[in-house]
């Protein structure tokens, strides 16, 4: 292969080398009574092909907004992408027309959601809902699609697929519904699956089964997954890379093993400590005092500064940018934990 400069790369080569999805400086703002309020700010990340990116954060951190914005699933009356790009297959999804985007939704990028009951149309049969994307994108006839639905249901471990196809969501258990959602997401063999808290609403034993299923499908199909969750345990077991979000910003990005070994951001550290304490049965939990600031009341500097035990005047000036602190790791903190050598200029 002859060396070439970046812009001369053939599309094929770029596809091989570039990550499957690259998000650059994505900002999304909501229209509220108090005017435009930033929900996510300058978020950038990559999803390499065949890898799992975990996005973790507490409620209000912007993790779900990030997921929904990738496919522009938030109606424009409610929120708008104010800046940034989402590169997928050489195209910027934020600039595609609605019609072009529809060809990507469900076909190349699929989604599954938190509540499998409300995510499925309650009055359409399982079979009809599963057939729909294939009829739409692959131009399949109903009979052909039905055969494929059977295979899919089998794939996601639903016994008696024929019977299930005629049933309605309310006749299925929560775990089954989520399996149906997964089958639906996989029906057009997408390259990327965005899973928005796929197990949160499920019982713990079911949750484990669904995670198992996702994991095995991921390795069998070579799928890329963005996994949104608030549960660090889920991330630990499932993701390759992780991005921690707080108050609309990505504050830390790292490989999973790295982050659990040594969290860099004080918030990440705090979260991990609580979970570790819970698992360790110690007398008193370490905790992060205070609450997540509301989007319209963000402090001028680091959003975590008011709750941060390490904060000082440097933190309150302006939000620290997400900066590399070691190979493959980035952190948005003036003084990251465990990286004393790093002093970012705010």
């Amino acid at each position, binding site marked *: 292969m002859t060396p070439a400069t970046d812009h001369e790369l053939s599309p094929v080569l770029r596809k091989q080398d570039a990550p499957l999805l690259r998000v650059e400086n994505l900002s999304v703002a909501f*229209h*509220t*009574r108090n005017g435009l309020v930033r929900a996510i700010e300058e978020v950038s990340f990559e999803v390499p092909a065949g890898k799992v990116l975990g996005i973790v954060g507490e409620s209000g951190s912007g993790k779900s907004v990030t997921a929904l914005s990738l496919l522009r699933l938030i109606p424009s*009356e*409610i929120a708008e992408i104010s800046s940034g790009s989402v590169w997928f297959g050489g195209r910027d999804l934020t600039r595609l027309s609605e019609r072009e985007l529809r060809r990507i939704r469900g076909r190349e990028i699929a989604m599954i959601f938190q509540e499998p009951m409300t995510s499925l149309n309650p009055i359409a049969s399982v079979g009809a809902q599963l057939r729909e994307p294939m009829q739409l994108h692959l131009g399949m006839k109903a009979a052909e699609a039905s055969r494929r639905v059977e295979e899919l249901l089998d794939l996601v471990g639903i016994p008696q697929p024929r019977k299930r196809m005629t049933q309605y969501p309310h006749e299925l258990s929560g775990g089954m519904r989520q399996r149906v959602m997964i089958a639906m997401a996989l029906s057009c063999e997408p390259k990327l699956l965005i899973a928005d808290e796929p197990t949160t609403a499920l019982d713990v034993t079911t949750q484990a089964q669904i995670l198992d299923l996702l994991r095995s499908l991921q390795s069998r199909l070579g799928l890329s997954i963005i996994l949104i969750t608030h549960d660090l345990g889920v991330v630990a077991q499932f993701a390759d890379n992780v991005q921690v979000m707080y108050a609309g910003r990505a504050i830390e990005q790292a490989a999973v093993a790295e982050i659990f070994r040594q969290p860099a951001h004080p918030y990440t550290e705090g979260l991990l400590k609580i979970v570790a304490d819970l698992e360790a049965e110690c007398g008193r939990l370490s905790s992060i005092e205070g609450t997540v600031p509301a989007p319209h009341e963000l402090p001028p500097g680091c959003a975590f500064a008011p709750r941060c035990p390490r904060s000082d005047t440097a933190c309150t000036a302006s939000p620290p940018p997400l900066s590399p602190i070691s190979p493959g790791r980035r952190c948005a903190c003036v003084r990251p934990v465990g990286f004393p050598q790093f002093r970012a200029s705010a």
Partner: protein
Amino acid sequence: MKRSLFGKRFKIVLGAGIIVAMCLLAALAPYLAPYDPLQQDLLRRLKPPFFMAGGTAKNLLGTDNYGRDLLSRLIFGTQTSIMVGTASMALSCILGAIAGLIAGYKGGRIEQLIMRFADAHMAFPDVLFAIIMAAAFGGSTFNLILVLGISGWMIYARLVFGLVRSLKHRSFVEAAVSYGGGDRYVMSRHLLPQIVPILTVVATLQVAQMILQEAALSFLGLGLPPPAPTWGNILAEGRDRMFGAPWIANCAGIAIILIVFGINMFGNGLREYLDPQAKQR
């Protein structure tokens, strides 16, 4: 939320503006009306309003078939129409809310009794009911209010019943019971306050319905007896003269549209304002 030009605030302000104006008109009728609404002048019958050929400024909206000043009659009609609408609404609201509250909270046999009775009444066309009552007991303001009031209670009963049934299982009701709150305490302190706003909306809209219903009864000759002016009977009297003297029916019709429109706007705006889901954003 993007600023919406035609949102609930617009509706509420517009609706309330019309309602207040109408109420003022009713209250100040004796001062505003240029003539006695009952004063006949047979030599000045069916004069058109000032803007039509042959009309004069003497009777701005023209005269009716007894030569009575239409404007004055409409202004005085405001009093009766609003009074009848409000009083009959209040009657059906009180009857229905009590029935619904009891049925919803007590459940069991009482619920069956009340709600099935409401069902039966619901299946019985209310105009028919009103006709029978009015035909049987004649037309007076009191009878009219009674008839309209009784024919509307089921709406409230069903509404309150549904609300109470869903509220009954909310944790804060359970909490109140766990602290020893009795039926009356829970109903008055926890259930009614949640219901009243929604009830207000429905009741507001109901006033409009009652005004229309009064007009319908007048059409059938079962409204308030003449010469007392109500919009309904002015409109009903005017309908035979739609060809010769269209302004009588049309002025009364527009008056009805105006207040009913105002009430509906206000009620719908209020409903949107109180809708918890709309509120979240």
